[in-house]
C-alpha cells in the first residue's frame, strides 16, 4: 500500500528528534499565546510566524502546524475558564464549557475538549493521507479556468460563512484583492500603486497586514473597553481532571458526529473550522433528548464543537497541500510561510517534497498527542497566565509583534505599515466589517489574477471559457447557487440564528 508507505515515511521524518522538538515547542508556544484572552488563532500564527524563519523548511512548517493546534487548544481553554473566546471557533465552546467550569467541572470540560480534539485529529490525519493523492491527481486536470472558478467558489464560501451583511463581506474580499495588487505586476513587472516607495515594490507583506488587522487592531479595540476587562475567571482550584464514565458515554456520539461534520466542512474552501463548530453545536442541540440542558453545562456542547473545529482545522490542509489554495486565513499564513522557505504550494509539492508533506501530516497526529499529554497537567499554569492583568499584557504584545514584524525583512517600514493596518483594522471593526475575508482575498488575489489572465490568454479573450469547460462551469454554478441562497431573506434569517446562538 502506497498510502501506508507514505505515512510510515512521514512518521520517520516527524519522529526525528529535531522535528519532535519543533512540534513540542510549536504546540507549547501556540498554547501559551492562544491562552492569552483576546488573541485568536490567526493573530497567534501571525505573531509567531517570524520565529520559524531561522529553521529548515520541514521543521518550520511542523512547528507552525503545532502552533496552529496549540493556539486552537489554548483558545478553548480560555473560553472554558474565563468565558473569553479568543476567536470565532471557540465561541460555542464557551457557552457550555464555561457553565461546566462554574459548576466546578472545569477539569472534565477541559479533558473532554482535549480528548475530542485528539480523536478528531486522528481521523482527520488519516483522511488527509487517504484523500491527498487522489485529489492531487484531480488537481492536475485543473486548467487556469478551473483554478479561477475554484477560487471564486472559495471566496463565495468565505462570504457565506462570514457573520453579518453579505454585501460587506464581499466588499472586504474585493478590498483584499485590491490590496494584493500593490507591488510589481507578475507579467510585465510594472510597479502598481506603489507610489515609488521601494518597500512597496514587492507588495504588501501578508504577515504585516495580518499582524496589523488582527494583532494591533484587537489590542486597540480591547483598550476601548478599559484595560480591566470584566473577567469571569473561575477561581477555585481545578480538581478531578478525569471525566466520569457518564461524561464519556454522553460525549462519545457527540465527538463522532462532530468529527464527521468537521472533516467534511474543513475540506470545503471558505471558512472551515468556525462553521464546523457552530454547525456541530446546533446539530447536538437538535438531536438532544433534552435540549434545555444546553447552555447550562451540557458536556455534548463542549465535545461536539471542539471535535468539529479540530477536524476542520486539519482537513483544511487538504486543499492547501493538493491544490495550493488556502481555504482560510490561517492556511493563507501557511502559504506565506511556505513561500518564504521557497516552497510553492500546489499539486507538485506532494511529489517533489514528500518529506515535507508526509512529515507534516504525521506531525499533526503527534502534535495532537502532545497537546493532550502536555496540556492537561499544565492547565494550572495556563490559569495563572490568565491572571496577568491586561495593562501589562497589551504593551508586551505590541512590542513582541513589532519585533516580529521587523525581523521578517529587517525593514522598519513594515512596522509602520502594520501600525497603519492596525488603525485600518480598528476602523473596520468599528464599522462592522469582518477582517478575515479581507485576508483571504489578499492571499488569493495574485493567484486569481494570474489564472484569470492565463485562462483568457488561452481562450483568446473569450470570457465564455469559464462556463464552457464543464468542471469550471459546475464550480461557478455552485458558487452562484450559494450566493443566491445566502441572499434570500428566509435563509438569511436562519443563518443569523446559527451565529447568534452564542449571544443568548
Amino acid at each position, binding site marked *: 500500500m502506497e498510502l501506508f508507505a507514505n505515512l510510515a515515511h512521514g512518521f520517520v521524518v516527524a519522529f526525528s528528534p529535531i522535528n519532535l522538538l519543533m512540534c513540542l515547542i510549536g504546540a507549547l508556544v501556540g498554547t501559551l499565546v492562544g491562552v492569552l484572552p483576546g488573541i485568536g488563532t490567526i493573530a497567534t500564527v501571525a505573531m509567531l510566524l517570524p520565529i520559524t524563519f531561522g529553521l529548515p523548511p520541514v521543521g518550520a512548517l511542523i512547528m507552525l502546524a503545532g502552533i496552529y493546534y496549540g493556539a486552537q487548544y489554548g483558545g478553548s481553554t480560555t473560553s472554558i475558564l474565563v468565558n473569553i473566546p479568543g476567536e470565532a471557533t471557540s465561541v460555542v465552546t464557551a457557552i457550555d464549557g464555561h457553565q461546566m467550569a462554574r459548576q466546578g467541572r472545569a477539569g472534565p470540560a477541559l479533558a473532554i475538549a482535549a480528548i475530542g480534539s485528539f480523536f478528531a485529529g486522528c481521523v482527520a490525519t488519516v483522511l488527509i493521507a487517504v484523500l491527498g493523492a487522489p485529489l492531487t491527481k484531480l488537481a492536475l486536470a485543473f486548467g487556469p479556468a478551473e483554478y479561477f472558478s475554484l477560487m471564486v467558489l472559495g471566496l463565495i464560501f468565505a462570504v457565506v460563512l462570514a457573520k453579518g451583511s453579505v454585501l460587506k463581506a464581499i466588499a472586504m474580499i474585493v478590498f483584499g484583492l485590491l490590496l494584493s495588487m500593490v507591488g510589481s*505586476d507578475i507579467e510585465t513587472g510594472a510597479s*502598481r500603486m506603489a507610489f515609488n516607495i521601494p518597500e512597496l515594490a514587492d507588495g504588501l507583506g501578508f504577515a504585516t497586514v495580518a499582524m496589523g488587522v488582527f494583532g494591533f487592531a484587537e489590542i486597540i479595540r480591547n483598550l476601548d473597553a*478599559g484595560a480591566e476587562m470584566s473577567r469571569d475567571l473561575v477561581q477555585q482550584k481545578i480538581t478531578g481532571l478525569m471525566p466520569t464514565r457518564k461524561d464519556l458515554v454522553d460525549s462519545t456520539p457527540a465527538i463522532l458526529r462532530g468529527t464527521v461534520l468537521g472533516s467534511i466542512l474543513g475540506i470545503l474552501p471558505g471558512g472551515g473550522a468556525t462553521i464546523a463548530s457552530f454547525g456541530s453545536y446546533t446539530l447536538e442541540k437538535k438531536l438532544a433528548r433534552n435540549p434545555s440542558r444546553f447552555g447550562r453545562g451540557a458536556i455534548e456542547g463542549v465535545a461536539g464543537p471542539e471535535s468539529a473545529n479540530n477536524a476542520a482545522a486539519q482537513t483544511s490542509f487538504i486543499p492547501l497541500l493538493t491544490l495550493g489554495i488556502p481555504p482560510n486565513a490561517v492556511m493563507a499564513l501557511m502559504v506565506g510561510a511556505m513561500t518564504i522557505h521557497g516552497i510553492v504550494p500546489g499539486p507538485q509539492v506532494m511529489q517533489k517534497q514528500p518529506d515535507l508533506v508526509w512529515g507534516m501530516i504525521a506531525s499533526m497526529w503527534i502534535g495532537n498527542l502532545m497537546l493532550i499529554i502536555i496540556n492537561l497537567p499544565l492547565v494550572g499554569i495556563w490559569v495563572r497566565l490568565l491572571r496577568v492583568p491586561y495593562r501589562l499584557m497589551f504593551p508586551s504584545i505590541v*512590542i513582541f509583534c*513589532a519585533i516580529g514584524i521587523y525581523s521578517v525583512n529587517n525593514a522598519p517600514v513594515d512596522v509602520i505599515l502594520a501600525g497603519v493596518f492596525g488603525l485600518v483594522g480598528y476602523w473596520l471593526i468599528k464599522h462592522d466589517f469582518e477582517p478575515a475575508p479581507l485576508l483571504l482575498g489578499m492571499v488569493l488575489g495574485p493567484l486569481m*489574477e494570474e489564472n484569470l489572465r492565463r485562462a*483568457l490568454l488561452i481562450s483568446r479573450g473569450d470570457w465564455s471559457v469559464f462556463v464552457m469547460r464543464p468542471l469550471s462551469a459546475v464550480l461557478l454554478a455552485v458558487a452562484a447557487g450559494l450566493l443566491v441562497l445566502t441572499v434570500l431573506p428566509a435563509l438569511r434569517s436562519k443563518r443569523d440564528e446559527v451565529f447568534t446562538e452564542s449571544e443568548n
Partner: protein
Amino acid sequence: MADTMGHSATATRNTKVALGFCLLAIAPQIFELIWSIGTIFGWGTGRGPSAVVISHATALLAGAPGALIGAASGDTKKVSSEVLLALIYSYPLFVVAILTFFMTIRSAQDYVGGVVLMAVALFALWAGSDLQGMRGFSFGAGTAPRMFGGLLVALSAGIALTGLLTDGPPMAHYSWRGPLFVMAGILFFALAIRPLGLVVTGFISFMIAAAGSQETRWLEAAIVGACLTLGCAILFPYVLGLPMPMFPRFLAQ
C-alpha cells in the same frame, strides 16, 4: 415641535458628516502638503509646499473642469496626475458630500463605512490610472486593479445605500487614548530600531504603548518592560538566530 427638533438634530449631524467627506475628498492633497513640509528642512526629495498647493489648487479649480469640457468636446489631451486625482477621486467625493446634506442617514455606521470604502476604491483607481490597460485580448498591468477597483466602488456604494434605506446602528464610539499611544509606540519602534538598537527601543516603546491605558502603574510597567526587553533581546538574536541591532549605534562603535 418634537418633529422639528428631530429634524434639526439630523441636520447638524449631516452637516458634520458632509464636511467630513469634503475633508476626505482632499485628504491625499493635504497629505502631500504635510509631506512636502519636510523638503523645507531638506528631508526627502520632492516639491516644496508652495508648489504642491499651487498645482493642486489649479488642478481642482481649473484643470479638472477644463479637462471635463475638453473631453466633452472630443479633445483627448493627456492630463496631469493632479488633474486626474481631482477628476477620479475628489470630484466624486464632493458630489457624495453634497448629496449627504439632503439625505436622511438611517444607519451612520453603514453609510460612513460605505463612503470611506468608496474613497479607498477611488483612490486605488487613481493610483492605477497610469498603468497599461488591455492590449487586444491580453491583460495589461492595470486591467485587474481597475476591475477590482470598479467592483469595490459599486459594492461600497451598495453599502452606503443600505445605510440610507435601512435602519441600523449609529456611528460607534471611538476612543483616542488607546490608538494614539499604541501607534506612537509602534512608530517610535520603527524609527528608533536602527539607530538605537533593540534594548533601548524596546523598553521605550513599551512605556509609550503602556500609556494607552489609564490603569497603568508606572513602576510595575517599568519592571515588566525591562524584563520583556531583556527576554526579547535574548530570544530573537540568540535563540532564533534573527540578526538585529542590539545597542545604540554610537555606543557600539
